[in-house]
């Protein structure tokens, strides 16, 4: 079995993000970049399947700038077998999904695991678009994945509003990982050294013959308004009045 796992290079969630003066994006210089945390969970799940089932190849794939190979190396250091970097300049979600379709056609994986969303733009779209374009079943926001005995189908528990939903479907399929699916491992030191010898293929997105024209245009980016100081009220009556007339929450 082959599992394709997507990896996105995103700013470290612990770094402080500033919007650039033009309001077109964030200031990228000096930022620390990491593997999208939900993608780490996706990698971990693929590695656990490999460890449980044995004959599984885990391929990590990233669509983006050349530097994304750092994040792919992290995936290889965690234990993935090989990597594919599709070089593309700021593709939107639709373009990424179309590129992934080409890779799926080429690689013929049984399972594609993605993080439920990337923590940079929080679009939460690529998995769903990919499933639609391929006509494959999908389970988004999953917190548990179980293979059937014949390994031809899986059962997933999805985290939905107000509870859990259990669904089962035949493979091949698309899965997107939620926070509670697993706890990702650290890349061990031997793993980091082994990763140096693992293959990384580089493909130019333009060579795949897909329409990369952006469907989404960022018109303006602005930081959230700074929180203003609170106000002290003298009495409960004044508080209720403020909640009713000013905040309009009661």
């Amino acid at each position, binding site marked *: 079995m082959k599992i394709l796992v997507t990896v996105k290079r995103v700013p470290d969630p612990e770094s402080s993000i500033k919007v650039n003066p033009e309001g077109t994006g964030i200031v990228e210089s000096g930022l620390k970049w990491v593997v999208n945390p939900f993608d780490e969970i996706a990698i971990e799940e693929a590695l656990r399947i490999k460890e449980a089932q044995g004959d599984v190849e885990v391929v990590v794939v990233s669509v983006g700038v050349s530097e994304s190979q*750092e994040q792919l190396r992290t995936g290889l*250091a965690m234990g993935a077998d090989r990597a594919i970097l599709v070089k593309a300049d700021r593709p939107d979600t639709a373009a990424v999904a179309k590129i992934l379709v080409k890779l799926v056609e080429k690689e013929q994986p049984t399972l594609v695991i993605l993080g439920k969303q990337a923590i940079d733009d929080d679009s939460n779209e690529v998995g769903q678009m990919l499933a639609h374009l391929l006509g494959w079943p999908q389970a988004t926001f999953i917190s548990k994945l179980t293979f059937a005995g014949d390994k031809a189908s899986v059962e997933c528990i999805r985290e939905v509003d107000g509870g859990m939903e259990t669904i089962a479907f035949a493979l091949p399929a698309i899965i997107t990982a939620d926070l509670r699916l697993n706890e990702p491992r650290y890349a*061990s*030191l*031997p793993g*980091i*050294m082994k*990763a140096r010898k693992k293959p990384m293929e580089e493909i130019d997105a333009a060579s795949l013959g897909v329409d990369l024209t952006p469907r989404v245009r960022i018109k303006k980016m602005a930081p959230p308004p700074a929180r203003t100081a609170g106000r002290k009220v003298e009495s409960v009556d004044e508080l209720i009045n403020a909640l009713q007339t000013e905040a309009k929450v009661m």
Partner: protein
Amino acid sequence: MDFNLSIEQQILRESVRGFAENEIKPVAADLDKNEEFSYDTMRKMATFGLFGMFVSEKYGGQAMDYLSYIIATEEIARVDGSHAATVAAENSLGIGPIYYFGSEEQKHKFLPSLCRGDALWGFGLTEPNAGSDAGSARTHAVLDGDEWVINGGKIFITNASTDISAGVTVLCRTGTLADGRPELSCILLETGTIGYTSNVMHDKMMWRGSNTSELVFEDCRVPKANLLGVRGQGFQQMMQTLDGGRLSIAAMGLGGAQGCFDLALGYSKQREQFGRPIAQFQVNAFKLADMALEIECARLLLYKACWLRDNKMPFSKQAAMAKLNCSEVMYRCANHAVQLHGGYGLMKDYDVERFYRDQKLLEIGEGTSEVQRMVIARHIGAL
């Protein structure tokens, strides 16, 4: 010039930082309080690959460069000195001499289990009356047929009295040279040898989660083949080992200073007095600025020393400079960090209290600051 770390080194730093934050930080304070060596974190560190980092794969190591080893040590020290001590002492002092000076047979016999972290190995140099004057060691070994008979004792030996300590490299007098000076040689002494006792030393001020030992040798008989390298080369072997070891002590100073800075910055931005975060008072902001500056300089010097070593250039002077500088930078950073924490910094509930104590060893172990100045002074031709 290129100050970029390789992709592997960047991944290594991130990964070790995550490991240290999640596996070591939560237990460090309790281990310190109880003066306990943790076999649980030892196992985790071993599985993670923190032993045998610069050793060739042939003997079970990770075959990383020395800078990678230093970065890993730095990141462990950023959260806890005791665990960094276990790692640094084991790699530089336990594994190092066997790897660099051992015979093929000795390397194949001892290194795989040490690199797996199944066993630990000590470095027996210091004696109760031979500290900075290490050459005056009294422990002696006499050849009797096919065996060395060792008598004497060592003190302050890291990793030598745990349940998994497999032995110790002992610096012994093995004779007298023509000019009357002692002939010094290193001999590998295995745990279980009759007459060998290793006792855990208690009531330490610092590194309380690491293992420190007092060793006694009473007519210990070890095979002649346990001589490490060439007879009479013991002191040179020890000094060369310390050149590399100093880089790892420097890494502990650098990582510890970074840990102090991170704690101090975080606390200063959150603690409010006189209506605003204390970081916004210039007197405090300048302390933090000084810490950041000193850490940056210390890192540049240490990494340069590692770069020299990795490129097979002389690095002994820079190793002494980095060890001296990093340990003194941590001294000042720990002092500022406790000061910024005020009364809370004096309490064990706050990690800076432990950093303040752990720091002191760095100015004493593997050559005191005075000895480092002596080494540097000799290198520049002043002494």
